[in-house]
């Protein structure tokens, strides 16, 4: 009497995981990203009041990638209860994976007019190191992006979860992991451009990377990727898998004694989360035009966590909101009060953790609940909040 999988076709069930509102929202968003933005950026003249500047597109495009990372982080932290301080690593690895392809696309236009990337020329390398082989093919790059971070996450996760490393321990270990990786990539001999990383990309699939059209396409891709991520995540958390995951978060020993092996559940969501980060990274690099080891710095990874915390963990829309709030705030503060940016960020960390256990989404839900004067109380647990929220 085991539940027969996919009596209804999977794709349908996947689609069904957004409720009507979820679909309306994402439809609206997709329309904006795929139609409004291109028109406003390409068609309208630069001085038109509704014209969207490149700056806007790259900025929002960047934040879209961050949002994907935030959702990925939320999957394992908000639902799995595992706080990773190493997600910057997977993000960066994805970026590097795709960056290798972009570097190869520069071809002989580099300042050394060599087939090798400039940094290799200046290291006196005569031919590509083995791990660069095939990096000139787009498909291979995509493969790298998907496989390498996933593999690393899988191996690391397998050992960590098998030896039941939990909570803070896990956080600290992941932190050490990304820190070590950063040092490794800083080395020039490692073969990834050292401190400078990859930059000055020229084209992607033969199209000039700075062309407005390319930007718009990348932007649209990021948007679609985000919607896809949300859909997938939504499906996961509503599936039995999701329920087991939250069960593990709340009472792991009980889960074991009713016959689930937490190892594989954690490992699956952990690896998936890493892959999502990698995809985000791959989309991020061509838009910001640089990838370098500082993406793996300890601070970056922790910042990801704060996006989630601010937005509302254990909800799916929360991380997206969080990513946008924090990063827009960053863009604004670093211009208007450069000296006070860190004060703000620091305070944000504290306030969010002290007074917004469920982030702004939780706050909003609570207010709404209060207005209705029933239901969701202050102590409403995340899972329930998640149920309350659409996509």
């Amino acid at each position, binding site marked *: 009497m085991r539940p027969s999988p996919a009596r209804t076709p999977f794709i349908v069930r996947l689609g069904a995981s957004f409720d009507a509102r979820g679909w309306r929202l994402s439809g609206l968003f997709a329309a904006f990203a795929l139609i409004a933005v291109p028109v406003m950026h390409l068609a309208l003249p630069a001085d038109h009041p509704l014209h969207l500047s490149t700056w806007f597109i790259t900025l929002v495009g960047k934040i879209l990638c961050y949002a994907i990372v935030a959702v990925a982080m939320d999957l394992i932290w908000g639902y799995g209860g595992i706080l990773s301080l190493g997600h910057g690593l997977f993000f960066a690895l994805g970026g590097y994976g795709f960056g290798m392809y972009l570097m190869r696309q520069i071809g002989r236009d580099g*300042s050394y007019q060599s087939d090798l990337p400039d940094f290799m020329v200046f290291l006196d390398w005569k031919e590509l190191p083995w791990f660069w082989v095939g990096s000139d093919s787009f498909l291979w790059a995509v493969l790298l992006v998907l496989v390498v971070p996933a593999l690393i996450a899988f191996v690391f996760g397998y050992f960590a979860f098998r030896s039941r490393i939990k909570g803070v321990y896990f956080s600290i270990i992941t932190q050490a992991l990304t820190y070590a990786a950063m040092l490794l990539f800083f080395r020039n001999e490692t073969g990834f451009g*050292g*401190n400078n990383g990859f*930059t000055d*990309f020229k084209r992607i699939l033969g199209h000039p990377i*700075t062309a407005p059209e390319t930007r718009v396409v990348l932007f649209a891709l990021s948007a679609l990727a985000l919607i896809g991520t949300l859909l997938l995540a939504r499906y996961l958390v509503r599936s039995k898998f999701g329920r087991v995951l939250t069960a593990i978060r709340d009472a792991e020993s009980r889960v074991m004694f009713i016959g689930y092996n937490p190892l594989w559940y954690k490992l699956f969501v952990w690896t998936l989360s890493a892959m999502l980060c990698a995809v985000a990274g791959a989309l991020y690099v061509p838009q910001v*035009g640089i990838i*370098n080891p500082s*993406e793996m710095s300890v601070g970056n990874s922790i910042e990801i966590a704060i996006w989630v915390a601010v937005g509302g963990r254990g909800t799916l829309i929360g991380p997206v909101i969080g990513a946008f709030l924090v990063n827009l705030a960053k*863009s604004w503060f670093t211009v208007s009060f450069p000296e006070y940016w860190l004060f703000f960020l620091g305070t944000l960390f504290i306030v969010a953790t002290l007074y917004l256990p469920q982030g702004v989404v939780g706050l909003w839900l609570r207010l709404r609940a209060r207005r209705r004067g029933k239901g969701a109380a202050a102590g409403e647990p995340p899972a329930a909040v998640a149920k309350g929220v659409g996509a």
Partner: protein
Amino acid sequence: MVRRNFMKTISAVAVTAAFGLNSFAAMAAETIKVGVLHSLSGTMAISETALKETVLMAIAEINSKGGVLGKKLEPVVVDPASNWPLFAEKARQLLSKDKVAVVFGCWTSVSRKSVLPVFKELNGLLFYPVQYEGEELEYNVFYTGAAPNQQAIPAVEYLMSKDGGEAKRFVLLGTDYVYPRTTNKILRAFLKSKGVADADIMEEYTPFGHSDYQTIIAKIKKFSSEGKKTAVVSTINGDSNVPFYKELGNAGIKATEVPVVAFSVGEEELRGVDTKPLVGHLASWNYFMSLKNPQNEQFTKMYRAWAVKQKLPNADRAVTNDPMEATYIGVNMWKQAVEKAKSTDVDKVIAAMAGQTFKAPSGFTIKMDETNHHLHKPVFIGEIKADGQFTVVWKTPGPVRAQPWSPFIPGNEQRKDRPEGR
């Protein structure tokens, strides 16, 4: 007043950011916007904040003399927070949103590399004020810092000279990133050309923020004890210098036995070190605060006054250094070029920059090369004094022309010494 100024800008920026409309037509009329792109937070703040102050000071000075083309300059300060992608984003914002006429900024090579594509794409104008590894020549950038041949090579020549102690063996010590690596690569080639054997060259790199130099110092002692006169060429970056020099001082390596010449250590960095044990160690720059000449008198006095006025932390001990001078030169040369071009149009200004001259605090009349976007600069070798200043022990007779493409790097011979114009 600066604060109010860019507060105004900000509100404007906020508006534009929100609605993407360009409300600048009106403002642009009375002021010329100047972008300042230096990290005010994060790891690089240690070096870059001083440069931001210098730009603001220079602008204030220009404004007090009536501005440029009858318009006041209006600084737009942004904080890329030592985050390289953020550098690119901020650069784009300065150019496309604030419509700044010119940007003064960047310190690390990576930050420069990160903004380059933006400046190329939007045909912006960047003044880069820090000594760097060369191997680059961009139409949209003016390099007011030293190229390797304006800093590294003279320093080594000095070490090999009689006065420098006739060093025969060299330790090339640096932080592991592109500037030290390129510099050391060039130096290695140069030393070879001077007949120094590979066995007599030791190359060592440490990670960023490395703080334990015991092993390295021990190695240096060993190496130097193995015979001929040894000298150390240090391209250690920013923060690591303090532990390095502290270790050096306590390990009893005297400048008279093993002199250390540094390319990234100036007055600003020495503020963080107790210099008494370091007397006699060297630095090679195109400017020292201790230089005696009217321009420098005026420059240092002006900065001290500025520091006090801005209530900078420990303003009483404010010092000037080479990148600050380079920044100062940059701002003024840009002003001259604008006046010559009678416009702030980037292409016109770039054209007008060629051959600009300026009586710099270094006491020399500095010239912007007609073709290669680098300055002709004098080179000074200074010995650290107990008070954290330098005594100049050697200097080039006159300004030296920059070689962005070092002849000591194979394949550079056939390079054109002018950027690819657009």
